[in-house]
């Protein structure tokens, strides 16, 4: 009896998931010691002290909260009470805008660096120094110069998405096979047409790999950036719920961040497959 690997893997995945949820459930079941206290005082205390409930929410609590958010993702009841969908929308919009700006800068610049050994050598020290800077380190400078927290967050996304795309584009263009370039040369193809018909298609898989790394980093950074700038976004939501001591909401948000991150990564993975050519 042979079953497909995918099916067997899915079964094992489900088993792991069930084991994890069960362990979580058992660990947060409660049954801690309760202390007899004055009913008036008990009202001020949480369920942990009065009923011996675990301070950590269990899987059922999280599932319930998640279901509540999914049922009504777009409500807006004031500054600190917006639906999860709205918060995610803000984060995705910021990432999208910052990322798009980075694409517009990184790809043309990367093509130029990749085509010109002079530019490659001349710009290398700048890239090497700027690349390892944590994008959040730019935040104060951005806030000071831009004077707008929303745009500053977008700038931070821009700066963190830039480097992987720039470096990969330059590398991809510089390592396009000599013979393909020679084909274009013997056909007297002009520079611009050569870029679009030979260099970019040949380097596309490498460029898309850089773009995939960038979107991953951008999604990591947006949470931290929104915790700092506040107002809206999934990062702000996490921090706000921490201030509310709503661990259930924090765990729910963590889960949702993971799922969105995966979707973004898969979109880019699919795009990479679309431009990859077999040799």
């Amino acid at each position, binding site marked *: 009896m042979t079953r497909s690997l995918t099916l067997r893997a899915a079964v094992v995945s489900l088993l792991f998931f069930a084991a994890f949820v069960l362990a979580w459930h058992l660990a947060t079941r409660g049954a801690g010691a309760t202390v007899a206290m004055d009913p008036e005082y008990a009202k001020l205390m949480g369920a942990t002290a009065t009923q011996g409930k675990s301070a950590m929410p269990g899987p059922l609590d999280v599932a319930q909260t998640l279901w509540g958010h999914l049922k009504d993702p777009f409500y807006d009841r004031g500054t600190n009470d917006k639906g999860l969908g709205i918060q995610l929308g803000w984060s995705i919009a910021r990432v999208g805008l910052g990322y798009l700006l980075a694409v517009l800068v990184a790809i043309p610049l990367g093509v130029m660096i990749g085509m010109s050994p002079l530019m490659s050598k001349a710009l290398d020290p700048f890239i090497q120094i700027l690349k390892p800077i944590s994008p959040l380190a730019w935040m104060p400078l951005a806030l000071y110069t831009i004077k707008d927290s929303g745009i500053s967050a977008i700038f931070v996304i821009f700066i963190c998405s830039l480097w992987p795309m720039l470096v990969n584009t330059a590398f991809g263009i510089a390592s396009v096979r000599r013979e393909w370039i020679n084909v274009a040369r013997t056909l007297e193809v002009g520079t611009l047409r050569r870029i679009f018909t030979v260099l970019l*298609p040949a380097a596309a898989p490498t460029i898309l790999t850089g773009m995939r790394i960038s979107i991953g980093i951008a999604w990591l950074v947006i949470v931290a950036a929104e915790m700092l700038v506040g107002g809206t976004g999934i990062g702000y939501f996490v921090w706000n719920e921490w201030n509310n001591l709503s661990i259930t909401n924090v765990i729910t948000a963590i889960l949702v961040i993971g799922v969105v991150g995966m979707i973004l990564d898969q979109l880019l993975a699919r795009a990479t497959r679309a431009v990859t050519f077999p*040799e």
Partner: protein
Amino acid sequence: MTQSFISIEGISKRFPAAGGGATTVFEDLWLPMERGAFTCIIGHSGCGKTTVLNVLAGLDRPSEGVVIVDNQAIEGPSLDRAVIFQSHALLPWLTVMGNVAYAVSSRWRRWSRVEVEEHARKFIALVGLSGAERKRPAELSGGMKQRVGIARALSIEPKILLMDEPFSALDALTRGTLQDEVRRICRETGQTVLMITHDVDEAIYLADRIVLMTNGPQAVMAEIVENPLPVDRARNDVHKHPLYYAVRNHVVDFLVTRSRSFSDADKAALNRRAVPVVRPGAPEPVVLGGDTLTPSWPGSRVKEA
């Protein structure tokens, strides 16, 4: 001096050597080529024959000398000179049609898509790949890929076709078929060809003239062998021609011994501008058939009995 269609005039190639000075790959090469002629350059690896071809293609510049094509010194790559690369060099993200059409649309920029595809289809048919237009290079065998490379090069209707060991990566059977195709196409179209090879039999089958290059560094063109075999030679019996082994032995002797032993004194004695032309001959063998003499090869002279 009559002007040849293509003329290599005193080209040399030098590279800066480690520790100053320069390494000379080849030196002071002169070679005229007539319109419609099929010329092969043969020599060992490192004699710079690929560089000679790249200079003609305009992909490389000689350190000295010029190449003249149709009364014009070449400045760089041109659509007049098509290259068939050793590794086929097809663009793997394009289909067969895409690859050929890319060349056609580069040649005739104003043509519409329909015109380009129609022209490309003609050349895809010429190399026997009709029906494979929508395939990508990865789906083709090595021989089919090289056919696409040939179609792409011919489709721009170049003044000269430059081939850099085009069949060396193919298996013997495919190589034979492709040589037949190339010979047929070049004869039909009167294409001028320069081919680089190190396969003696290939050179003898295809070329009108075989240029022998000595070993590098400081390689020179030592000799031009005129192919004495009839133009209507066919693959299956070319080796039965009485002169076949005369030519073959001459070229092999050169490659085995003379390419190495060609001394500085020999180089000094060589008239670079008019390299000796050799036309290997042999005693005319005849076959006795009853009481009449039958030539052993159509075209070979029958001795009077």
